[in-house]
């Protein structure tokens, strides 16, 4: 019976993922277009693009994990004032549309950026001392900035329930702090680390806005190349071939991941966080944690603060502009309406993505050997939308779902499709960690299967579901690539509105973009804070 749960998510994926993808392939590979494949494989340019795509993603992932691991440890093991707030703040970069992140980094670190200007003034230089615009360094910085919270949330969430006695046992057995970490904690964390690294890698692999703006004309990933071929050159066969290569890469990654995960997973006894966390004790601990958190906040906040500061430069007039439809055409609406649209789409996406994700997680939860082989494959299938570029998805929607073109449901569906794998990933590990004994105990006390779910699974899953909901909500708020292609012109989202005004010349327009970015930042930050507050009241499991 349980095995049939998969039909709902699979039906959704078939209609809104496989079918549009099929439409792209059919359109592009029909007849003589097939020679595009030969062109892609014979031209060394595309090989360089692929190599750069993989290289920058690997380096970005490694640096992100290294940068965020101490944060995961600190938030998992220490109890200090403001922890909830600080952790909520780290999520904000992830919410930002890539276009805003890119803009923020160029306004901060570009040749005319605030840091360069300040340094030039301070040391009386004629040239900007930091010249990393359009370099790999800039891309790496933006990627770490963007994905920091993914590692912090996934690894930290797992770590915060890991029994500290295991590490203490190792310490008592004579292991130094470092060895205990290396031999005990790290191996136990591995599934969570892999899960986080995989997500970050796939993210960086399909990164679009950041590379397009910060990479300049020289540095192109597959995703940027697909976009250029589609929109600038209208070379659909080439774009489709590149999409296929990208899809093949992410599919292989996903398969590798699921195999690794089943091999590494071991039943863990989860502990309530209250038993795991402790206060900062020694002065050395306090100094190290404070220094790290200060550096982290500086890195994660400066680009955002610079946007807020810039948006207020003109004494708030940028915000007043948001309520005015300058162009006075039906295609343009007062930018403030975009905020309302985004909130509506995000709420609908959260409901749809969490429902689908929960069902999907249940359909692959069992690790019983008797589970049919195809069910074990589902895990990889559910991850597919992650590895598919947003631009490709949106384009597929237009080709395949033309009849739904005018429906606002299309945006919600597209956002849910993108958020869906995140929800599954957020729920699955906790779902698998619920001890079967708890369900059996409830059964023995007279609970029907439905009651077992409501009384045991649901409350314990609440936290994981909330994490999934935060992801779904924030992804919807910030989604850019697919929305560009499927949103109705009269119902733009915040990122779309930003893109529109940024595309228009003039300082006032850029000011509006900064003002909208600030609003998006605030809305998302408030949403996350609300969820974090809600979580405190819940039992911490």
């Amino acid at each position: 019976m349980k095995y049939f749960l998969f039909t709902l998510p699979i039906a959704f994926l078939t209609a809104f993922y496989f079918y549009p993808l099929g439409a792209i392939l059919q359109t592009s590979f029909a007849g003589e277009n097939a020679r595009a494949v030969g062109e892609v494989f014979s031209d060394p340019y595309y090989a360089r693009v692929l190599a750069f795509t993989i290289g920058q993603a690997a380096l970005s992932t490694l640096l992100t994990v290294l940068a965020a691991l101490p944060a995961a440890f600190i938030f998992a093991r220490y109890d200090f004032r403001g922890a909830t707030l600080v952790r909520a703040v780290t999520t904000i970069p992830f919410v930002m549309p890539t276009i805003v992140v890119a803009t923020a980094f160029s306004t901060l670190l570009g040749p005319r950026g605030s840091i360069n200007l300040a340094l030039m003034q301070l040391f009386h230089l004629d040239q900007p001392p930091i010249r990393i615009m359009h370099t790999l360094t800039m891309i790496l910085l933006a990627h770490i900035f963007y994905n920091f919270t993914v590692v912090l949330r996934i690894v930290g969430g797992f770590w915060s329930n890991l029994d500290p006695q295991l590490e203490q046992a190792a310490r008592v057995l004579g292991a130094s702090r470092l060895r205990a970490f290396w031999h005990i904690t790290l191996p136990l964390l591995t599934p969570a680390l892999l899960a986080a690294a995989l997500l970050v890698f796939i993210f960086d692999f399909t990164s679009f806005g950041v590379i397009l703006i910060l990479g300049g004309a020289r540095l192109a990933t597959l995703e940027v190349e697909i976009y250029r071929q589609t929109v600038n050159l209208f070379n659909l066969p080439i774009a489709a071939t590149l999409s296929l290569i990208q899809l093949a890469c992410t599919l292989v990654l996903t398969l590798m991941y699921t195999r690794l995960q089943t091999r590494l997973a071991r039943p863990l006894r989860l502990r309530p966080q209250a038993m795991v966390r402790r206060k900062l004790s020694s002065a050395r601990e306090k100094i190290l944690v404070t220094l790290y958190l200060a550096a982290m906040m500086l890195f994660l906040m400066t680009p955002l603060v610079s946007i807020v500061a810039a948006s207020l430069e003109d004494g708030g007039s940028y915000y007043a502009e948001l309520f005015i439809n300058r162009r006075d055409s039906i295609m343009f609406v007062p930018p403030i309406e975009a905020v309302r649209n985004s909130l509506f789409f995000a709420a609908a996406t959260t409901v749809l993505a969490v429902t689908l994700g929960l069902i999907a997680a249940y359909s692959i939860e069992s690790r019983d050997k008797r589970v049919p082989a195809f069910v074990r494959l589902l895990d990889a299938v559910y991850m597919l939308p992650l590895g598919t570029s947003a631009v490709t998805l949106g384009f597929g929607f237009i080709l395949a779902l033309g009849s739904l073109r005018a429906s606002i449901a299309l945006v919600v569906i597209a956002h849910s499709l993108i958020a869906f794998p995140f929800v599954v990933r957020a729920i699955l590990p906790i779902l698998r960690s619920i001890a079967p004994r708890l369900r059996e105990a409830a059964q023995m006390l007279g609970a029907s299967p439905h009651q077992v779910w409501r009384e045991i699974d649901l409350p314990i899953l609440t936290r994981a579901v909330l994490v999934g909901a935060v992801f779904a909500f924030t992804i919807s708020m910030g989604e850019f690539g697919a929305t560009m292609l499927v949103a109705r012109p009269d119902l733009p989202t915040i990122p779309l509105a930003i893109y529109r005004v940024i595309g228009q010349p003039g300082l006032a327009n850029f000011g509006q973009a900064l003002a909208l970015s600030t609003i998006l930042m605030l809305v998302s930050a408030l949403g996350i804070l609300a969820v974090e507050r809600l979580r405190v009241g819940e039992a911490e499991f």
Partner: protein
Amino acid sequence: MLELVNITKQYAGAPLLHDISLTIHAGEIVSLLGPSGSGKTTLLRIIAGLEQPERGEVIFEGRNLRGVPPHQRGMGLMFQDLALFPHKNVFENVAFGLRMQGIPRAEIRARVLETLELVGLASLAQRDVNNLSGGEQQRVALARALAPRPRLLMFDEPLGALDRLLREQLVTELRAILKRIGMTALYVTHDQDEAFVIADRVAILHATRIVQMGTPAEIYHAPANTFVAQFLGLTNLFPAQIRGDGQVVTELGEFRYASASPPGDIPLYALIRPERVRVGTTGIAARVEECVFRAGKYRVRAATERGAHVTIETEDALAIGAMIHLHVEGVELIQASGM
């Protein structure tokens, strides 16, 4: 009340339980005693409906339970790891089963408090279960299992994780509580002391079968085979032959065997209980190898000249290496166990 008929279960291709038949009467406490891995937990889970046997029936109050899901069996189970719901407090844990029965709120409250009173936890109703001591958690688990008034209450080594003193205290208390409310219970354990204290009757599980069932006294006085004897700590077992004249021949010497007909053609062992051996001036010569003080007496292990080890009890300490003479007052003959 509960009747198991020919329960058979395989585990990973090997037989785990073979043709297990067992009856428990209403109000009786039966203990299922066996070493770890003997399948006793599996048998309990089969009764609970959490696992299905390959063959055999579970008859409960005259009704065959085949196909009846666990939550409709009206049984309670206290798990080895307790499985307290970590997201509910003490009160909510105990109230859970009552809520599942759809009992009105006010009555649930009364019954939870009454049950907590019974196990001596009335003051902890609002506490978080994660912050209780081991003994308190046991009591919460017991209260939770008792509250819905199951018609059969099962225990899966519920005291395994506790220290010995607390275990002895709790097991005595548990028996008192179960008897006070007239509960029918099945108690699974690998600890012979625990089983003998709590149970009216004990079933000993070994090598896929129940090898003996009886009251603690019956089992102690007439162990069914060498496995049971060893499990009870009776280690003076020596291969024995019966001669035509009725004399029992062992490596320790010859003994007269009082009982009428010696059992069939299964290999026999002579069991010598420590209290039936006396140290004297004549008898079997042996050298003292070990002497420990236990329960008011000295437990002495000695080796005969032919290398056989005998354990005896003495009032006084004996020097290691000293030569003594053993006088055996009587032997019992028991069958060798299958394995």
